[in-house]
C-alpha cells in the first residue's frame, strides 16, 4: 500500500494553520481507518474532562481504506469526537458523496483542533488546503450553505456543513452532506459550530491505490452478487426504503409509541414505507457506490425533501402519536435545513409531550397533535423559549422537570425506534453501547426480528451476550472500513476480511477482523471509563422493566440483570465493567 493512503490533515483553527501528516502503517493495520482511527487519535490526544464544546475538543472527519474503491457502499464518512450530548466518545456516520471526495483528495482523516475567531470553512482541493472566511454563510441553513459553497468552489466539490442548530450549540445538531445525508447523532454539529467551522468542502481527483487489485475485484464481484441475492438489500430496502420496517416492527409490538408508553401504533400502516411509496415518493436516492439505494426523495407542498427514513418516521410519527405523513416529512425537512438529528429531536419532543400531559411542564404540545410540532423544531434550532430546553436533549429536559425516568435514553443519547422489551439481545445492545442509545452498534433486530442470518427467539437471554459482542466487534470493524451497515444483511465477516486484505495487503481472516473490532470497542470503553462513566451507565430507562400493556410484545420486560454480568464476563471486563489489564495487554492498547 502506498503512503498516499495513510495521510491525515491536521487543522488548527485557532492558529489558522494546516499540516499534513503521514500515519504509520501500524496504526492502520491495528485500527483500519474510519471509526477505529478516529477513536485511537481521540484516545491518545484528548485529555480527560475536556468540555466537548470547548476549543480543546477534537473533531475528526475520517474515511477508511476501502473508501472510493470499487467496494459497494464505500463512500461514507464518519465524524469522531467527544459528544456534548453524552460526554462519551462518539462516532457519527454519514452517507452521500463527501467521503469519497475526501479519500480522492488523498486523506483518510481531517483532524480539527481549536476554534476559529471568526466563522470559517475548510476548502480542500486535492493537495491545496485553505481555511476560508465563512462570515457570509453563518446563519444560513444547510441547503443555502451547500448551494453557496458549490457556487464558490465548483459543482464537483462536496460539502459537509452545519446549519443554525450547530452554530447555536444545540446538542442535537448534525453535520449534513448533500443537503439531506446526516452525521446525525450525538451533537457532532454542535462541536463543529463551537469551533466556528461552518463547513468542510472537498474535491479530489486521485484514485485510491489498493494493494491487490485483482483480489479486490474478485471480492467485490462476489460482494455485489450477495447484495443482489439478498431479499433485504435487493428488494425491501430499494423498493420501500428503511421505512419498510414500520409495519414489521409494529406487528412485533416494538414500535415505540407515545414516548415508549406503548409498542403498537394504530396508524402504522399510514406512515409505512409502503405508504411513502404510494403517496410521496419522487425518486430513490443512492449514496456513492451503493447498489442498494434505500434513500427516498419525496415531495410535500411542492418541496422536494430528502427522506423520511424509518427512524425519522418513528421519531415524528408514533413517538409523538402523529399519523400525518406529510407533517412527518416536513419535520424531516426542517431538521435537514437546520442540521438536526431527527431521532433525538423527535424523541425529545415525545418526552416533552409526556411531561406536558403528566402536568410536569407547560407546553402546547400533545400526543397526536400536529400543531406546534414544526414550530418546536424551529425553536430548538434557534434555542428559543422552550426550544432552548429541548435543545439540550431529553435527559436534561426530563431531569429539569423532575422526572428523569421519562427520558428514553442511554448515556444521554435518545433510544431509537425499537422497544427493547421485545428483543432481549437488542436491549443489551442498547445498554452497553459505548455511544449511548444506539440501534446500530449491535443490530440484533436482524436475528431477533428479521430472521437474518437466522431467526432467534427474541425472548431468550441465553446466548445473547455472546452475539451482542459479536455484532459490536463486527460493527466497530465495519465502521472503520468505512462501509454501510446494510451490507451486513448480505455479507458475512469473511467478506469484509477478504476485501480489507486485498485493499491493505494484510492477510487477515474473519477472526483477526473481529479482533480489530474488539480492540476498537475496548478502547472506546477505556475512554468512557477515563471520563468517569461506570457500570451504572450501562442502564436502561425504568420503563423497560415494566411490561408493555398490549400488542405483539405485551407482558414483556427487559432482563438486563441476567444479561449484563455475562456480557462483562465474556468481554473480559471486571464486575464494574472495566476492561481487565489482561485484556488491555492482549489487545495491545495499554
Amino acid at each position: 500500500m502506498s503512503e498516499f493512503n495513510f495521510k491525515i490533515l491536521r487543522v488548527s483553527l485557532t492558529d489558522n494553520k494546516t499540516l499534513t501528516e503521514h500515519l504509520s502503517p501500524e496504526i492502520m493495520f491495528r485500527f483500519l481507518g474510519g471509526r477505529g482511527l478516529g477513536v485511537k487519535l481521540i484516545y491518545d490526544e484528548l485529555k480527560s474532562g475536556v468540555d466537548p464544546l470547548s476549543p480543546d475538543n477534537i473533531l475528526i472527519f475520517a474515511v477508511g481504506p476501502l473508501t472510493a474503491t470499487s467496494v459497494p457502499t464505500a463512500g461514507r464518512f464518519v465524524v469522531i469526537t467527544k459528544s456534548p450530548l453524552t460526554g462519551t466518545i462518539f462516532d457519527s456516520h454519514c452517507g452521500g458523496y463527501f467521503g469519497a471526495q475526501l479519500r480522492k483528495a488523498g486523506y483518510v482523516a481531517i483532524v480539527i483542533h481549536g476554534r476559529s475567531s471568526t466563522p470559517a470553512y475548510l476548502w480542500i482541493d486535492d493537495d491545496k488546503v485553505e481555511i476560508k472566511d465563512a462570515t457570509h454563510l453563518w446563519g444560513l441553513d444547510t441547503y443555502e450553505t451547500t448551494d453557496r459553497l458549490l457556487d464558490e468552489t465548483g459543482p464537483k466539490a462536496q460539502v459537509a456543513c452545519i446549519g443554525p442548530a450547530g452554530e447555536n450549540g444545540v446538542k442535537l445538531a448534525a453535520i449534513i452532506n448533500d443537503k439531506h445525508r446526516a452525521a446525525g447523532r450525538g451533537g457532532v454539529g454542535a462541536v463543529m459550530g463551537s469551533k466556528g467551522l461552518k463547513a468542510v468542502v472537498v474535491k479530489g481527483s486521485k484514485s485510491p491505490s489498493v494493494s491487490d487489485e485483482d483480489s479486490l475485484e474478485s471480492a467485490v464481484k462476489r460482494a455485489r452478487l450477495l447484495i443482489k441475492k439478498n431479499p433485504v438489500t435487493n428488494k425491501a430496502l430499494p423498493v420501500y426504503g428503511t421505512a419498510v420496517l414500520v409495519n414489521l416492527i409494529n406487528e412485533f409490538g416494538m414500535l415505540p409509541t407515545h414516548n415508549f408508553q406503548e409498542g403498537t401504533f394504530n396508524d402504522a400502516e399510514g406512515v409505512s414505507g409502503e405508504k411513502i411509496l404510494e403517496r410521496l415518493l419522487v425518486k430513490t436516492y443512492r449514496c456513492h457506490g451503493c447498489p442498494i439505494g434505500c434513500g427516498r426523495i419525496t415531495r410535500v407542498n411542492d418541496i422536494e425533501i430528502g427522506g423520511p427514513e424509518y427512524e425519522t418516521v418513528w421519531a415524528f410519527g408514533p413517538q409523538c402519536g402523529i399519523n400525518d405523513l406529510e407533517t412527518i416529512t416536513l419535520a424531516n425537512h426542517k431538521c435537514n435545513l437546520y442540521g438536526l438529528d431527527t431521532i433525538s429531536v423527535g424523541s425529545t419532543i415525545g418526552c416533552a409531550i409526556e411531561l406536558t400531559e403528566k402536568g410536569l411542564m407547560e407546553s402546547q404540545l400533545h400526543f397526536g397533535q400536529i400543531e406546534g410540532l414544526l414550530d418546536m423544531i424551529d425553536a430548538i434550532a434557534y434555542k428559543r423559549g422552550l426550544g432552548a430546553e429541548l435543545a439540550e436533549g431529553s435527559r436534561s429536559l426530563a431531569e429539569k422537570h423532575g422526572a428523569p425516568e421519562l427520558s428514553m435514553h442511554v448515556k444521554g443519547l435518545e433510544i431509537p425506534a425499537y422497544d427493547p422489551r421485545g428483543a432481549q439481545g437488542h436491549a443489551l445492545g442498547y445498554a452497553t453501547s459505548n455511544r449511548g442509545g444506539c440501534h446500530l452498534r449491535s443490530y440484533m433486530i436482524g436475528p431477533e426480528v428479521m430472521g437474518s442470518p437466522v431467526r432467534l427467539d427474541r425472548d431468550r437471554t441465553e446466548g445473547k451476550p455472546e452475539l451482542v459482542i459479536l455484532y459490536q466487534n463486527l460493527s466497530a470493524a465495519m465502521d472503520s472500513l468505512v462501509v454501510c451497515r446494510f451490507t451486513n444483511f448480505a455479507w458475512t465477516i469473511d467478506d469484509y476480511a477478504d476485501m480489507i486484505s486485498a485493499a491493505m495487503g494484510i492477510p487477515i481472516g474473519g477472526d483477526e477482523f473481529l479482533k480489530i473490532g474488539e480492540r476498537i470497542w475496548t478502547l472506546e470503553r477505556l475512554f468512557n471509563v477515563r471520563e468517569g462513566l461506570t457500570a451504572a451507565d450501562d442502564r436502561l430507562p425504568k420503563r423497560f422493566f415494566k411490561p408493555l400493556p398490549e400488542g405483539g410484545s405485551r407482558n414483556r420486560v427487559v432482563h438486563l440483570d441476567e444479561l449484563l454480568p455475562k456480557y462483562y464476563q465474556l468481554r473480559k471486563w471486571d464486575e464494574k465493567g472495566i476492561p481487565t489489564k489482561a485484556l488491555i495487554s492482549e489487545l495491545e492498547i495499554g
Partner: protein
Amino acid sequence: MTLSVEELAKMIDHTALKADTKRSKIKQLCEEALTYEFGAVCINSIHVEYAAELLKNSDVKVCCVVGFPLGTNLSSVKAFEAKEAVRLGAEEIDMVMNVGALRDGNIELVQSDIEAVVRASGDAHVKVILETGLLIDDQKREACRIARKAGAHFVKTSTGFGPMGATPYDVKLMREVVGSTMGVKAAGGIRTFKDALIMIDAGANRLGTSSGVSIIEDYRWARYSTSWMQPEKPCWRCPSRAANLNKQPKDVYLWYKQRCITCPHRDENIFND
C-alpha cells in the same frame, strides 16, 4: 451437528419452480449450482434440456418436477412427462403424489401412479412429494409406505405451493417410516442455514430450497458462534401452528388444531412470532 459447507451444499436441490421463471434465471441457477457444488437444480420440465446442457460434465444433477404442483394429472401424462424429462437430461424426478386418491383411500391408484413414473424414469431417481400439509399423520405414513413399495427412492414433504412447507415434525415422521432405505427430502420454507440444519437433524438428507446461495453463504456465520442454534419457541416449527383453514381441507385443519388441545406447550403459544 458438524457439517462442512461442502457437505451441506451437496444436500441442496437448488430450486426455481415459479411460473415467472425466465431462461436467464435458469442460467443463473445453474451457474450458482456449479459455483457452490449443489446436489442438483430442481426445475420444471420446460427448462430441463437447457439446464442439462449448462450442467453437462459436472456433478450437479438436473431434477425435474412432474405432475407439479397439484399431482392431479393422469398417470400416463405424469409418466410421459417423466420419460421426456429423462430423455432431455433429467437424472432425478420429483413427482407429486395423487393426494386426492390417498384421501379417498384409493391406495391402488396412488401406488400405480407412482409405479408408472418410476418405470418411465428408468435409472433416474424418483422422489414422491406427499404435500404433507394436505394430510393427517396416518395418511403421511401410508403415503411413505406406498412410495417405498412402488419403488421410489425418496419421499419429499412439500411442493412449496401447498398449504405449508417442510416441518421437522413431518421429516421425522417420514424418516421413521421409510427408515434408512430411502431418502427424505425436506422442501418448502427452508430459507436459512438454521432451517436447513434443523431439517437435517430431523432426518432429511436432501433439501429443496430457492435460498441455497444464502444458506451456504450465511452458514459461514455459524463458525463465529454456537448461539445461532439456541432453542426456539416450541410452536415455531409445529405444523399445527402453521395450519390454515383457507388453505387446507376442513377435516385436515381441524385434525391439526385438535393436537393443540393436548399439547404441553399450549400455554406458550401466545405471541404471533
